[in-house]
């Protein structure tokens, strides 16, 4: 399975619906995106996912850090 947002294949089953067997939720271990199997394709299909919200996996390490990590006190 491919992450709809960052197109990597590090996807895991996060949870099955607690009642019945009506949906599964998946999580991308690269970008932390989660989606439910019963959501619409604009949230689940890598080909349709809005390009403005796509994430380049190589850019994640360069994202703004909030809040900045304070220097360790010696």
């Amino acid at each position, binding site marked *: 399975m491919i992450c709809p947002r960052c197109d990597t294949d590090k996807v895991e089953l996060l949870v099955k619906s607690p009642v*019945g067997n009506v949906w599964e939720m998946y999580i991308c271990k690269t970008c932390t*995106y989660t989606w439910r199997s019963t959501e619409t394709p604009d949230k689940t299909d890598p080909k349709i996912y809005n390009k403005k919200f796509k994430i380049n996996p190589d850019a994640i390490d360069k994202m703004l850090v*909030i*809040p900045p990590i304070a*220097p360790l*006190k010696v």
Partner: protein
Amino acid sequence: MNTMIQRLPWRLFLVARGRAQTSSNKLFPKETFPMTAAGTNVIPNTPDTIKVPQAYMDLREFLAVLEAEGQLVRIKDEVDPEEIGAAGRASANLKNGPAVLFEKVRGYKNPVVTNVHGSWANHALMMGMDKDTPTKEQFLELSRRWDMYPVPPTRVLDAPFKKNIVTKDINIFDIISLYRINTYDSGCFLSKACIVSADPEDPKSYGKHNLGTYRMQIKGKDKLGIQALPFHDIGNQLAKAEALNEKVPIAICLGCDPITTFMASTPIRYDQNEYDYVGALNNGVPMQITKAPTLDLDVPAGCEICIEGYIEPRVRECEGPFGEFPGSYSGARLQAVVQITSISYRDNPIFENLYLGIPWSEIDYLMALNTSVPLYKMLKDTFPEVQAVNAMYTHGIGVIVSTKVRFGGFGKAVAMRLLTTPHGMSYNKIIIIVDEFVDPFNLEQVMWAMTTRVDPDKDVTIIKNCPGMPLDPSSNPPGMHNKLIIDATTPKAPEIVSRETELLTPPAGTAKWEEIIAKLVKQARN
């Protein structure tokens, strides 16, 4: 007797509560846990003994009142989880939109409620006022109660949420019916959690305990992301802990009584405890707190769900985007991570969450008058000439202040004081100062003041390179603002007064004719 209190429509409130308490609805059972007093409480700091109704001790009491007042609707049919965000948007689009309770969410065990605070009617009912109370009257009443601070909480040992606890094989989805709020949110979010934390350098300090609302992304069955901005109290606490490479213990409380949730998004001083303000805003009735089941933190006893855990020190992970209160998506950032260690909850816990989008939506009611009043108090402390503050626009990014003007430049000085308050420093960006005879909550009057009092050459000031609110998409770089002051007050000496301005006054008999015309209109419509 205090005239403001005499004017309050308590009778209506008591009637509503009476109906609520006799409700046979199984979602709102009257649970037996210790209350501060039976039926009524006495405000200790008013000149006369005034009896007021018991404040809401939990969310369920408030939901019952909302339903009795026609301000809560139930969706009995099963819905897909993602329908809930749409319903939150839809209800906020309606004039005086109700809270919406979803009894069955597909694949989940428990109900969800949204838009609980999402109208002026619900806001008034939260304070025990008539649901038709105008906004400015709600501001004045909130301002009056603000001065009752501090009203310390009552400590209780037991609480309904302590009935069930999970500490192993935690699966948040088993307890909470989680859903994506807006289309391009990076996942499911808690948008209305009351998060309790302590100062890592002074953990026993009651005053420095913090209750705040920060967005939380669901990242696993027992893992969350948290947005802790540097100017937030939790950001301050996280910085102290990370300097020592220590965890920050937190308790995430969902479905609290409405004033507690309201206070969690109210800016106050770092060394003030929000619980002391809840009692004040409850008109002098103390709230109830209890120890969290596994951590040394005080939490609201009435909450539906209490998630305990800690913020991992010196760890950041991809979080967001999330549809935020300025009406646009935040970017994806590297943000802090929370490990969950326990979840305690009532039977059939109700998950309370809010929709946020282009204003106005529920979140705007949760950061309107509770942003206005503290800014008003801080200004009033140094400038008693200030009459009212309307900071209802995107958490105070836009603010209107009405003030008496003692001398030339006075309006600008008031604006600059606003920019040195703890909340104003980062949030306030566009500040409009109007005369004391202009109602800052009446935007037609504010526009009149701007169109007839402002000389753009001397009354408009830009202050560059100030602290800003990073979620404001115009903040550049994120976290920095240029500030705009528009002084729409009438010029006074020694400022050059080019010509005297005499205001129009209503002709004699206007009030009488208002009554006559209103009566005729009513007759014509009947």
